[in-house]
């Protein structure tokens, strides 16, 4: 299998070096993702969605009668010049007709792809990216954010935490987040919102990636004994070690993991131990039962191919490709970027959960058809408690008071 992969890979070189003599009639799309480095895990999740979408399109006769050909680029850890090389390679050299990126960086990607006109779908989920867009909406008109920013997601987390059917023993929260853009953004927003309603942010800790010895922090947490502990570290290793060391001597606190609940290994590793933790997924797919048969069919198909539950990013990346394909079909020419972009902005797309429309700043803000889903781990799997907006309970799944909370 691996050798096969490698053969394909080396073929790719020759195509890269060699002339384009034998380029068949295909529609090329670019997929710059983190294939190596710290973010390779999330990159893989997006990839699965994109791969699934293109396969579906190709199997059903392709787009405008042409097969879609994916050209990948490893954006590694989003070093500015790497991202720029990716843009120049995919758009400049390979002349792809759209970019499906998932998490592509924190602003550098917008600038890099903004130089071109091909629609650029990204899931940066961070304010700096949006700020770059805002700095010149004309120039960056081909940028599409397929999820909300960390700030918006944090607001939704706040809504959920305050909506929980649970009597908080006190008004103290501890917030632990990573030292990166995403972590800071969520941390800041949450502490702002909680302070506003008279809570005390008893501890705000910013930790670097790779923190696995939580003794010093937990010591303080245990003395504080807060009502909520929120962890925002988009990396499985740290959040698992935190939980293991927390549960050793737990406090009466709701554990809110935010986005950190979504990396595949978290549940794969902790299983039922994780029961009781709450977390969210932007543009998520409610589970264990999808909102409608069509969505359920998709979920089943996904799990059948990839043998695991739907991770963050897969579904929305899938939807991104589909929405673009929809626009291309409507326009009838994948290279008529002006028209394709116009259609994407105005027409909206009938997704698995309903009609999705791009809102302010070319963003698929959380909306009924692409909601932020808040889950609780219940017997080892994610169970949707709420969808937002509007914040409303999902089906009749009930919040369970975590086992470590003593009455």
């Amino acid at each position, binding site marked *: 299998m691996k050798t096969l992969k490698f053969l394909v890979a080396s073929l790719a070189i020759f195509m890269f070096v060699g002339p384009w003599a034998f380029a068949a009639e295909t529609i090329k799309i670019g997929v710059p993702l983190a294939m*190596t480095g710290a973010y390779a895990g999330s990159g893989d999740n997006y990839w699965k969605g994109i791969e699934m979408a293109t396969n579906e399109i190709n199997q059903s006769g392709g787009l405008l009668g042409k097969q879609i050909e994916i050209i990948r680029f*490893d954006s590694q850890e989003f070093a500015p010049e790497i991202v720029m090389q*990716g843009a*120049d390679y995919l758009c400049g050299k390979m002349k792809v007709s759209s970019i499906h990126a998932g998490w592509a960086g924190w602003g*550098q990607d917008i600038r890099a792809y903004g130089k071109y006109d091909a629609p650029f779908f990204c899931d940066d989920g961070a304010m700096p990216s949006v700020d770059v867009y805002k700095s010149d909406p004309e120039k960056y008109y081909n940028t599409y954010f397929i999820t909300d920013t960390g700030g918006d997601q944090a607001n939704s987390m706040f809504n959920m935490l305050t909506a929980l059917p649970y009597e908080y023993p006190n008004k103290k929260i501890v917030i632990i987040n990573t030292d990166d853009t995403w972590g800071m953004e969520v941390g800041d927003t949450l502490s702002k919102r909680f302070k506003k309603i008279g809570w005390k942010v008893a501890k705000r800790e910013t930790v670097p990636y790779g923190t696995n010895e939580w003794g010093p922090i937990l010591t303080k947490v245990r003395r504080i004994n807060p009502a909520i502990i929120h962890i925002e570290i988009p990396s499985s290793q740290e959040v698992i070690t935190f939980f293991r060391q927390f549960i050793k001597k737990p406090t009466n606190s709701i554990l809110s993991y935010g986005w950190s609940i979504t990396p595949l290994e978290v549940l794969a590793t902790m299983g039922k131990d994780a029961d009781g933790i709450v977390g969210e997924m932007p543009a998520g797919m409610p589970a264990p039962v999808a909102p409608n048969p069509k969505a359920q069919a998709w979920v089943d198909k996904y799990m059948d191919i990839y043998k695991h539950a739907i991770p963050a990013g897969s579904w929305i990346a899938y939807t991104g490709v589909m929405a673009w394909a929809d626009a291309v079909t409507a326009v009838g020419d994948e290279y008529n970027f002006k028209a394709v972009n116009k259609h994407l902005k105005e027409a909206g797309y009938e997704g698995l959960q309903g009609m999705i429309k791009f809102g302010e700043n070319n963003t698929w803000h959380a909306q009924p058809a692409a909601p932020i889903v808040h889950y609780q781990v219940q017997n080892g799997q994610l169970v949707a408690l709420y969808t937002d907006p509007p914040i409303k309970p999902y089906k009749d799944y009930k919040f369970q008071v975590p086992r470590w909370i003593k009455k």
Partner: protein
Amino acid sequence: MVLILGGFYCVMGILPLFFANTAHIMNILIMILIWAVVASCWDVIMGFAGIFSFGQVAFYVIGAYASAILSVSLDIPPVFAIIMAGVITGVLGVIVGLPCLKLAGPYVALVTFAVHMTLIPFLKGPLGRAIGSGGSQGILTIPPINLLGVAFSSEHLVPFFYLTLFLTIICTLILALIIKSYWGTAFLALKDSENFATSLGISAFKYKLMVFAITSFITGLFGALYAHYVGMLSTKMLSMDVFTILMIMMVIGGIGKYPGVVVGAVVTVTISQLLAPLGMYRPLIMGAMVVILVLFLRDGVIGLAQKISPLQRKFG
């Protein structure tokens, strides 16, 4: 040596005429120019002065951040910011040099690499934010260089290319002078036997400090140039990947075989570009390359050339 370098830069100078419109290629060419100089500096430090420095990437990044911060936070025009960045890096180079030039081989590597490692948490952390490093998000709005109404940036590749080429040639000349001058011989003497050299009245410390200062200055200068080129910076530039790529340039070019390292830069950047679509197989192959090259291409391409044709010797 003069022939090789001259030929190289002439060719580089012509290339844009063919590739002016393909941003992708221009980008590669510009990166080749920048890396060529940075790697050359490292070669002068390691190969000629025999200082076992692992701080090259660190100085590069310091220069980049210095210029970015100066121009973003203090609104200093990029042209001056770049020069100031070079000076700052040079001074830091001296400060780092003072303690470690008294040390022996691996310890110098230790100290300099420790500086490299310290930069990451520093720039990401509150201290970094305080001076405007933008934390782990980095700096995303670095203004382009603007000279006499001409903008030089990733948006205007051709002018930027020639600006870089111009600076590259100047710096290359400086480095070539160092190597060919009395210093060069002094360095080689130092490398062979410090005691011997000292007995000749060559003050190891003085010369090493000088070469440290000069190379850090140039490195910082090009770091700054790079910052204004891409317009964005993050601590990712300190990743092991960049470090290794720089190292491969030296291994291919041959340590102390200037200008082999320039050839090394061309080869490495190109290969790394060709392999980019391979994803994780790119670093895999790069790694294997280092191992094989270190084992079998001991003096790099120049060494090879020397072996093949005795004529080449005088360039070594």
